[in-house]
């Protein structure tokens, strides 16, 4: 069975600081990788995804993530955060052959950006 681990449960940083959130997965085969974000009081929404091609993926709101197959990692980055990036971030993985496109999520990282 696949699993996903996110290294930090909570991150606090100031505006304009750089952000990197770690995500590692355990699965031996081909995977699809996702980062979802949940802003306070809002629905969970897709930030970006990787399924093939360039391992450096760009998403919405200036976020990017890099898939490093040898490290089973898919870390999320943003060079300069804003107060509005305060949210909970979830890494997730799916196996292409899995029925119904089901996702396995990590435990989430709560990010607080101080103005």
């Amino acid at each position, binding site marked *: 069975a696949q699993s996903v681990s996110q290294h930090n449960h909570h991150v606090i940083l100031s505006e304009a600081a750089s952000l990197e959130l770690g995500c590692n997965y355990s699965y031996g085969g081909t995977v699809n990788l996702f980062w979802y974000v949940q802003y306070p009081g809002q629905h*969970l929404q897709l930030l970006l995804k990787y399924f093939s091609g360039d391992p450096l993926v760009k998403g919405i709101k200036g976020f990017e993530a890099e898939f490093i197959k040898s490290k089973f990692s898919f870390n999320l980055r943003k060079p300069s955060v804003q107060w509005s990036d305060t949210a909970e971030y979830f890494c997730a993985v799916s196996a292409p052959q899995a029925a119904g496109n089901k996702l396995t999520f990590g435990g989430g990282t709560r990010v607080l950006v101080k103005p």
Partner: protein
Amino acid sequence: DVKVTQSSRYLVKRTGEKVFLECVQDMDHENMFWYRQDPGLGLRLIYFSYDVKMKEKGDIPEGYSVSREKKERFSLILESASTNQTSMYLCASSLSGQAHNEQFFGPGTRLTVL
């Protein structure tokens, strides 16, 4: 825009009650999912469905059942609610065909079992 709606934002039930959580999506998606979200544990899949009347167990199906009689509606049932089922419940839907298709989430139902 895809819209996934859930019948209640907040619910309070008593131990032993039968609880129904309803989810409706308006984009003709084949796949629908029920998760529970708990602090530090992320989202855990309870059940999913990839077609009408089809259902598959997720990672934590114990104590839950589901029903999908129509394509747009997916119900989660707690046969006999217990306090350890107090949680946030999220419904999602997605198109079939590609495993990288995005899942679209509803607003969640925060269930408290007393």
